[in-house]
């Protein structure tokens, strides 16, 4: 059933297990205590930040599968994406698994998009279990969108930090865990914010303000 841009799920797909990996700065925050794994080292024992991002995502996915007591063959499809060009972290993380991968790019809303699409697929009865996951890394995003880390420039007070972390959850047709009741498909709202340091102002209209 669809009402406006919101779809309602009759068969109530459920989030049966989930896992999160985060960096040290995120650990200090209010959500820090919910992370399964915290990185002491932002490189995650890899040679580049991109590889670290990929490894975080891969760890989050396999941990989510493991925590739910599933095996790799129980998963029908993976929905995943990240912030880098050609969603490389998600694509390379998907190499580690033996189930199909559907890549998504939706910037900061990749996680909600993967949950929405995963729930739709499970609700329709095409598949039984879907993994929805996403990841990002402060250092790799900073390099792609803004300036090199060592450049001595100032951050304006309203600047945001990209999260170093990854999360994944298993959406299943089994009736346990957190039920997904509905999901809203978002429109693109561009109010002309061009400041790369003020992502909050650029994204807020999509959530809070009804356009003209």
């Amino acid at each position: 059933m669809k009402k406006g841009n919101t779809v309602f799920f009759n068969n109530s797909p459920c989030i049966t297990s989930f896992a999160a990996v985060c960096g040290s700065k995120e650990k200090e925050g209010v959500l820090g205590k919910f992370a399964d794994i915290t990185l002491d080292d932002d490189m995650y024992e890899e040679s580049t930040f991109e590889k670290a991002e990929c490894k975080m995502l891969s760890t989050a996915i396999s941990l989510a599968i493991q925590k739910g007591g599933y095996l790799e063959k129980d998963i029908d499809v993976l929905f995943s994406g990240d912030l880098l060009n050609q969603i490389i972290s998600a694509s390379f993380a998907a190499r580690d698994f033996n189930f199909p991968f559907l890549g998504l790019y939706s910037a900061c809303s990749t996680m909600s998009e993967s949950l929405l699409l995963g729930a739709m697929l499970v609700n329709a009865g095409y598949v039984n279990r879907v993994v929805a996951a996403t990841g990002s890394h402060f250092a790799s995003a900073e390099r792609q969108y803004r300036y090199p880390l060592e450049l001595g420039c100032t951050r304006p007070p309203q600047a945001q930090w990209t999260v170093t972390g990854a999360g994944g959850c298993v959406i299943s047709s089994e009736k346990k865990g957190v039920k997904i009741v509905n999901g809203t498909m978002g429109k693109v709202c561009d109010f002309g914010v061009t400041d790369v340091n003020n992502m909050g102002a650029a994204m807020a209209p999509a959530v809070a303000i009804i356009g003209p």
Partner: protein
Amino acid sequence: MTGRTRDNYNENYLNYVKTQDPPTQHFKNCLSAFGVGGLICCIGQFIRYMFEYAGLSGDELAGATSIVLIFLGCFLTGLGVYDRIGRYAGAGSIVPITGFANSVTSPAIEFKTEGWIYGMAAKMFTVAGAIIVFGVFSGVLVGLVYLFL
């Protein structure tokens, strides 16, 4: 937020965003930029006096001083200290020659992971490139003005 047209709507929103941004502390920023920038210049002047004492003069003296300052800028960038100074000092550490050294060294470090040639060497000037282009361009313009005067 009373605009009806698209353009007007955006403009109203941007104005609203501006009112919500935490204010930049111009006075404090100017003060720390002045302090740190001045300190860098004092260090430069000290180095200059030392070279003068050692017997250098003219272009050699200016060159040697710049070389030492550029080295210090690169070295501190490599140690991961310069970006911290920059965060505190703002324009104070960007404007002197050490800031220029930092803007070349930092992408070089950043892109080293993509390889020596296609990474470090090719992307070394992503930040400083614009400064070099307009620096050379304005040099040519000034040169032409001198030629015809």
